[in-house]
């Protein structure tokens, strides 16, 4: 493993598999226990540095660190005067001077974790940067798929929605390809980046054509505001062409599962009856997020000298 987890490309197949296997072992070790806590990272300090609101991701990382007995500091820069990059560097150096061993960073700017990694000695974990990547989300998605379907090799995954602005999509495309899955991106052309042709994924504009062949359908959050910039004409039209409703769910194979990284726009990209169906892994994904993040923190921090 590299010292940092900044993007899915930091993980080769062996590393990615190690993370998933470690998460599975942690899951098994903690299953049914009253004391869901391990002493592994006692005396280590993990800082959650969040420049963007994301309660669920922060809580997931916080729980993961606490279950490994690390000390956790939550630093929310949102709304404070910290918004420019100079402050990102100052903040990083301050946190380092306080003895942080790992910084989990969420930032609105793509590449901010990469910059941070050049300024600190400890490990940096990207918890979502702009429209770039969110590698632990991809890991928990891969973990969830493997748990449900028993494998990743050859699994056909359709990622549907606002790929252009989605860090979840970028991380998943790369990681799933590394792990041998076959990814198809489904979106209106306006929500696919120029250059998507160089990604290790197929591209389709037609959800109905893709669904019957998919083992996994991953729905991305689509913000209704995008229609104001003419990415699509209206929420209704988007939903009609690219939303996953009960009728479309009927086109899926028997074993196929439906995923969503959350938070969902029920009625926009996903219908309530789909989100709440037995195919949906949405609740499992949340729980798996903690195990996968424990595995990442353990693998990044377990072996390093403290900063």
């Amino acid at each position, binding site marked *: 493993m590299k010292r940092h987890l900044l993007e899915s490309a930091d993980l080769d197949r062996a590393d990615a598999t190690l993370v998933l296997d470690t998460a599975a072992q942690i899951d098994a070790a903690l299953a049914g226990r009253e004391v869901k806590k391990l002493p592994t990272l006692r005396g280590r300090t993990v800082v959650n540095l969040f420049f963007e609101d994301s309660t669920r991701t922060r809580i997931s990382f916080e729980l993961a660190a606490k279950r490994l007995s690390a000390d956790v500091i939550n630093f929310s820069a949102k709304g404070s005067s910290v918004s*420019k*990059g100079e402050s990102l560097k100052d903040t990083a150096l301050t946190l380092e001077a306080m003895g942080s061993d790992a910084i989990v960073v969420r930032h609105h700017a*793509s590449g901010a974790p*990469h910059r941070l990694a050049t300024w600190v000695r400890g490990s940096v974990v990207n918890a979502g940067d702009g429209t770039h990547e969110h590698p632990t989300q991809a890991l928990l998605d891969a973990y969830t798929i493997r748990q449900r379907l028993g494998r990743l090799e050859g699994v056909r995954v359709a990622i549907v929605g606002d790929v252009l602005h989605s860090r979840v999509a970028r991380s998943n495309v790369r990681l799933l390809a590394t792990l041998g899955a076959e990814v198809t991106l489904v979106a209106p052309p306006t929500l696919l*980046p*120029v*250059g998507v042709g160089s*990604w290790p994924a197929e591209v389709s504009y037609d959800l109905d054509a893709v669904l019957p062949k998919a083992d996994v359908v991953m729905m991305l959050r689509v913000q209704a505001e995008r229609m104001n910039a003419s990415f699509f004409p209206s929420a209704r039209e988007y939903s009609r062409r690219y939303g996953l409703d009960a009728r479309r769910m009927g086109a899926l194979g028997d074993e196929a599962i439906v995923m969503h990284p959350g938070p969902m726009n029920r009625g926009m990209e996903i219908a309530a009856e789909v989100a709440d169906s037995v195919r949906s892994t949405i609740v499992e994904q949340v729980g798996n997020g903690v195990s996968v993040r424990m595995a990442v923190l353990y693998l990044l921090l377990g072996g390093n000298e403290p900063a």
Partner: protein
Amino acid sequence: MSYLIKGARPYGEDAADILVEDGRIAAVGESLSAAGAEVVDGAGLVALPGLVDLHTHLREPGREDAETVETGSRAAALGGYTAVHAMANTDPVADTAGVVEQVWRLGRDAGLVDVVPVGAVTVGLRGERLAELGAMADSAARVRVFSDDGHCVSDPALMRRALEYVKALDGVVAQHAEEPRLTAGAQMHEGDRSARLGLTGWPAAAEEAIIARDVLLAGHVGARLHVCHVSTSGSVEILRWAKGRGVQVTAEVTPHHLLLTDECAESYDPVFKVNPPLRTDADVEALRVGLAEGVIDAVATDHAPHAVEDKETEWASARPGMLGLEQALSVVVATMVETGLLDWRGVADRMSARPAAIGRLDGHGRRLAPGEPANLLLLDPGTRAAVDPAALASRSRNSPYAGRELPGRVVATFLRGEATVLDGKATR
């Protein structure tokens, strides 16, 4: 003060002595001697006319923490320049006779290069109404180049009026070609890399669309148009087409667009963030060919100093721009001379004669010949050294060439017969 330069090679050709007296080149020939003249050993050095930059940001007034007219002038002299055009996007904006005269005087006081102010096309660079172009042209600064650089004059009707109006001033509008509606939030060249890096793309079409529009307008009203920092192969094609039709259009390319590509963005280090952005290998190739062919007339630095806090940030928050004055000639040597695309006369044409002509600078861009103003530089073309930003004369450190080995070292620069650089060091 007079100088006798012994054994330098004018335009890289046969060695000759050059005698500089009273601000002029007094003689060029073999075995010259002159009593009282300081002898400069020119053995192995290439003599070229002093370089002229059409596009420099000196930051004064307003951001003296990033650069001043004096520090920028020193950087220019060290780069072999004898004249630089100072862009108008200062604070306050150079959109009045008062501001352009202030910049012009600061340059004259520094005395290292001729600082030629560029006037803003529109008031406050806001793209709404014309600034007092005539007043700036008539001022002591004698402004001939007008530009809203940093912003595109995107309103087609306003652009047409600006092109027409400057005809009366023998002026030229230097357009920053960027359709703003296509580049909202743009961070880097739009392509495979921007898609992967999650940085908003700056499509080539946003530049090409404006150039295409503007050459049509310039042709229609019979005005001179200059296109700043051309960065795409498509732009080169449009310029070739327009020139073929007789449109009075000229264009410049920056050293960084001749050398660097969007691959630099992979590090997310904002020292490589610039506007227009670094493009692809194919664009770099087309720009080099365009410059060799003359479709692109000039190399212009777009020297853009920025304070540390404006660059040591996450990519999206960083200001665009990079230093260029001190390495421009080296980059041209590496990309154009060593590749065989230009000879030294070609370098003199693209970096001195043509930019001087575009800016209507009579005393610059002249030949190395007796009687001409003694604006010249001596280059040691064989030296190769890694660029050390800490050693630069600029007040800022945002050089994209840090650590990169480049050929060529300016040994001396003369401005109207006075040495501004000797032994590779600024004289003042």
